[in-house]
């Protein structure tokens, strides 16, 4: 048999026995005293690291969200400010326009009133002038009629004199 010839390839029963016994003993001793605690510790640490990493990731996301929110808030505030400014401007423009409008209408009214008053006074003055001219004509006609119309030159002087006397005041 080949195994019988080869001294190296022939497993010794005693050695085999001791090897199996030794391995089994070693396995149980190491399992209980070394592998269990080591593997447990490694696992716990890895879990811890994983947890820390995921937590960090979560916090990062939260931070990003917070920043986003801040940005949004700021944006909103800016928009609000713009709206406010625009409103205020509109308001002021409106007020100015109204005031202008009002002033213009007042002015128109005053001008119209003044015109009416002027017209009235003018009419009154004209009526007065008319009356006075009428009265003057009548007076002069009276005086002319009272005098004798003999002398033509005298007449004309007289008319001149009268006319000079008439003062259109």
């Amino acid at each position, binding site marked *: 048999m080949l195994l019988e010839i080869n001294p190296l390839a022939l*497993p010794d029963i*005693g050695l*085999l026995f*001791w090897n199996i016994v030794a391995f089994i003993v070693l396995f149980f001793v190491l399992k209980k*005293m*070394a592998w269990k605690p080591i593997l447990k510790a490694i696992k716990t640490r890895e879990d*811890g690291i994983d947890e820390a990493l995921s937590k960090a990731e979560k916090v990062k996301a939260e931070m990003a969200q917070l920043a986003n929110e801040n940005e949004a808030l700021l944006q909103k505030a800016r928009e609000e400010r713009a709206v406010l400014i625009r409103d205020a401007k509109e308001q002021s423009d409106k007020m100015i326009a109204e005031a202008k409008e009002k002033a213009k209408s007042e002015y128109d009214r005053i001008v119209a009133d003044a015109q009416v008053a002027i017209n009235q006074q003018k009419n009154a003055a004209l009526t007065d002038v008319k009356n006075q001219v009428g009265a003057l004509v009548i007076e002069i006609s009276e005086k002319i009629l009272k005098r004798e119309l003999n002398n033509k030159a005298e007449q004309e002087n007289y008319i001149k004199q009268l006319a000079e006397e008439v003062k259109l005041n």
Partner: protein
Amino acid sequence: MAFRSTKSLLVLSFSILTMLFSNNLLAQDSTQNNTTTTTEAHEEEFNVTETILGHIRDDHSWHLCGHTSLPLPVILYTDKGIECFSSSNLMDEHHHQKAFQGKYYTYQSFKGKIKVINEDGSINDQLTANVWDFSITKNVAALFISMAILILVFVTVANTYKKRGITSAPKGLQSFMEPIIFFVRDEVAKPNIGHHYAKYMPFILTIFFIILINNYLGMIPFFPGGSNVSGNIAFTLALAIIVFIVVNIKGNKSYWEHIFWMPGMNIGMKLFLAPIEVIGVLARPISLTIRLFANVTAGHILVLSLICLIFIFKTVFASAISVPFAVFIGLIESLVAFLQAYIFALLAAMYIGMAIEEHHPKGDHDPHYNE
């Protein structure tokens, strides 16, 4: 993968060649010895094969240096009862084997094997077959030492976790071992065993580290190294048997179904595949055994052969070539030491993964021939 298998094939063929070659020499040698022992040759002829094999094989005493050896207990289970004595009884003061009169028989060690001898000094094969050798040999002692080292190291590491807390960064021995444990977990166990890998982690880790430490201890030429534990076929066979038992105990219904009654095939194919699958299952422990044994032994044989060149040429200048080459082979050996531990653990994990894999009814039907 292809490279690796080619390499291990080369190593295997080389080691087989060496062994066959050495046997021829051995046979010649023993016949020569029989004739020369009577004439008492003081000037011993340097025998390369014997020297190399003496360094590689197991022994009953642990040779330390010169003429000092560490005696180890010899335990023999004979048909008349158990016999225990010190291995120093089997050696005279000149470090030669001598006969020892035990309780039941007379024993003598021949090339590391204890044989029962007759009164005239010849080997009694019939009685030897009845004697079972359960001695604490050099390899067993070295195995115990490696066990002690492993337990010491990993209990220390485990205690460091307790002492320093799990959140702090690893330190010292702990930081040296942790990446290796991570490597075994992430590269060996997780991808091959699958979902239930955590349950098998202690097993894979134990296999990996006992092979690793014995590979490295085997490379140290002096005590407590110097023994060829992981290059001994009994050691690799023991591990392979344990893996085989674990795999087949843990094998689920679908694993056995895929061996004996391949689903998704017609009946002829099923009958055809069953014996092939059975052979495949049985071939796995054999391949595990031989791969590790051959790789480690081949490395040792190479280094020893290179060193022996100095004695063959009988000139110190041969060391100019043989020492650098031996260093180079030693470097390769230290790579192989890690690689083989990794491969053994990887294959063990793969076999377990295959055995506990849950197949979906209409899923993967490939027969998983893997060797």
